[in-house]
């Protein structure tokens, strides 16, 4: 038991870091030292000091306050994106795996195409079609990300499809929808949960990259990617403007990566197996 606890240290640290992040996002309006949108040109480019812990930017806005409020944007976008893509992907994957045949072929060929080139390239191409903005960024990410879930859900479904309890469910006269809803879905969901927790970190980085390139939230939004992109212009004499939001992004990605790694070690029996034989 003691050994298991030590193995799970990554999970515990992940939980603590994630909790801090979520708490900051929820309590943002109460813990921000300044108004993050208030511009005061006379206060611009103040180095990190006691009054402004992380300094101020080119418009005299307090960076710490902006980062705190930005945590809401980052969390909201990535969590929403991941749940929508996981939902769509899982559903299509289950349908594809359970029904097989032409439906399966069509869905899987689409997945192949989506996986045929780097996700960020496709998201960028999509953004030309959708236009800039936070919602469109979210849609672009969902369009790219669902394929991972579809693949895993399909694989799992095929594994369970002919198992005895599903045959039994079929024999007692359940409809296809009922079987999928009551028997296949619960069997597939644990793998999906692990995948979700492993993916959030990546999605946070995707969102940040796309906003950095100017495709997500637009200034003056305190989005972390946007803040870095604004700070980039002043990196010569005010490097803190670009550096601080990056640490916030890394912190949240790290929190979720650790949570995901820990959860996978805990829940995925195959992984546990390898840990045991090590």
């Amino acid at each position, binding site marked *: 038991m003691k050994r298991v606890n030590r193995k799970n240290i990554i999970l515990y640290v992940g939980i603590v870091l994630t909790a801090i992040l979520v708490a900051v996002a929820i309590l943002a309006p109460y813990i921000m030292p300044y108004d993050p949108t208030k511009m005061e040109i006379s206060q611009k480019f103040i180095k990190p000091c006691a009054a402004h812990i992380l300094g101020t930017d080119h418009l005299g806005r307090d960076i710490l306050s902006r980062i705190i409020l930005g945590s809401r944007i980052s969390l909201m976008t990535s969590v929403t994106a991941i749940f929508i893509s996981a939902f769509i992907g899982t559903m299509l994957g289950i349908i594809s795996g359970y029904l097989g045949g032409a439906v399966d072929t069509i869905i899987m060929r689409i997945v192949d195409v989506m996986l*045929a080139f*780097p996700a960020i390239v496709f998201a960028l*191409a999509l953004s*030309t079609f959708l236009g800039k903005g936070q919602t469109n960024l979210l849609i672009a990410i969902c369009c790219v990300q669902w394929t991972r879930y579809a693949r895993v859900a399909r694989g799992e479904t095929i594994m369970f499809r002919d198992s005895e309890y599903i045959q039994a469910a079929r024999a007692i006269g359940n409809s296809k929808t009922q079987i999928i809803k009551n028997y296949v879905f619960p069997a597939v969901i644990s793998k999906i949960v692990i995948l979700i927790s492993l993916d959030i970190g990546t999605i946070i980085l995707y969102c940040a990259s796309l906003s950095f390139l100017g495709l997500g939230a637009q200034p003056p939004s305190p989005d972390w990617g946007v803040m870095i992109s604004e700070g980039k212009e002043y*990196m010569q004499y005010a490097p803190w403007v670009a550096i601080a939001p990056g640490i916030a992004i*890394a912190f949240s990605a790290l929190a979720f*990566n650790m949570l995901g790694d820990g959860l996978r070690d805990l829940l995925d029996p195959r992984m546990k197996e*390898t840990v045991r034989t090590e």
Partner: protein
Amino acid sequence: MTKYLIRRILMVVGVLWMVSTLTYFTVHVTPGDTATAVLYELYGEDAVNTENLERVREKYDLNESVFKQYAEWVKNAFTGNFGTSYRYNKPVSYMIGLRLPNTLKLGITAFIFSVLIAIPLGVISALQHNKLFDHISRIFVLITSSFPAFWVAIVLIIVCALKLKLFPVSGMDSPQSIVLPALTLSLGMIATTTRMMRASMLDVMSQDYIWVAKAKGLTRNKIIVRHILRNAIPPIISVLGLQIGHILGGAVVIENIFSWPGVGGLFIDAINAKDMPMIEGCVLVIAFGYAAINLVVDIIYAAINPEIRYSGEAKK
């Protein structure tokens, strides 16, 4: 083997066709008038008037239906003609041909960096399993995979270029200028490859034949080189193939920051300028590169793995 090859190549062709079609229609149903965007981009707001709009539509065949334009585009694409860039007013293939070698240079350097760092790191990590080195390398991997690459790029510029003046800030005027972008680009790949290499080593090390080798009294070095590495490396080859895809994607962002004159920078500019032919050209070139690399990787993998060679089917 030949059967497997033919099947894989046909699949690549199919996928590329779908990618191009998808991109074509996605980009072409973009809200907003293309002709207006072109005029605005090339000549500014004042140039947007009915007469000029008509002229632009005429020049780029924008009056035809989308399907007709698509048929034309496909026909031309086969001859390597991807149309004329709205922004540069030059053939897309010419612009891409100009920029592609730079992206390849950057990508290959980044790939070499990451292999040189990640493989030894993963191997030592596994050999030192659960010892100090292993813990440090795992923490390193966890942290590097959490930092956004574009931010690492900015920090490297601030520290190595602006403060220490070791490397140029941007461009590719001197041989040193490739170091920072390539290093940034390789970071994400280092993390994944190290992790996979370590896992693959551990997997092999737990096999019975390693116990047999030990029982036979082989020296530690012999076991590591002949038995562990030999079996642990092949699965990594397919991981490396996928990683090159990440390099292609990452290059889009990194080239932008370092003003590296590659396809990635061209792509972002095209998106901002709504330069449709250029966007399609870039996507197709990137998709082609990605597919080609993975095809080569699969062939190498099949060549060293008899299970695939003889069954004629890839087992992933």
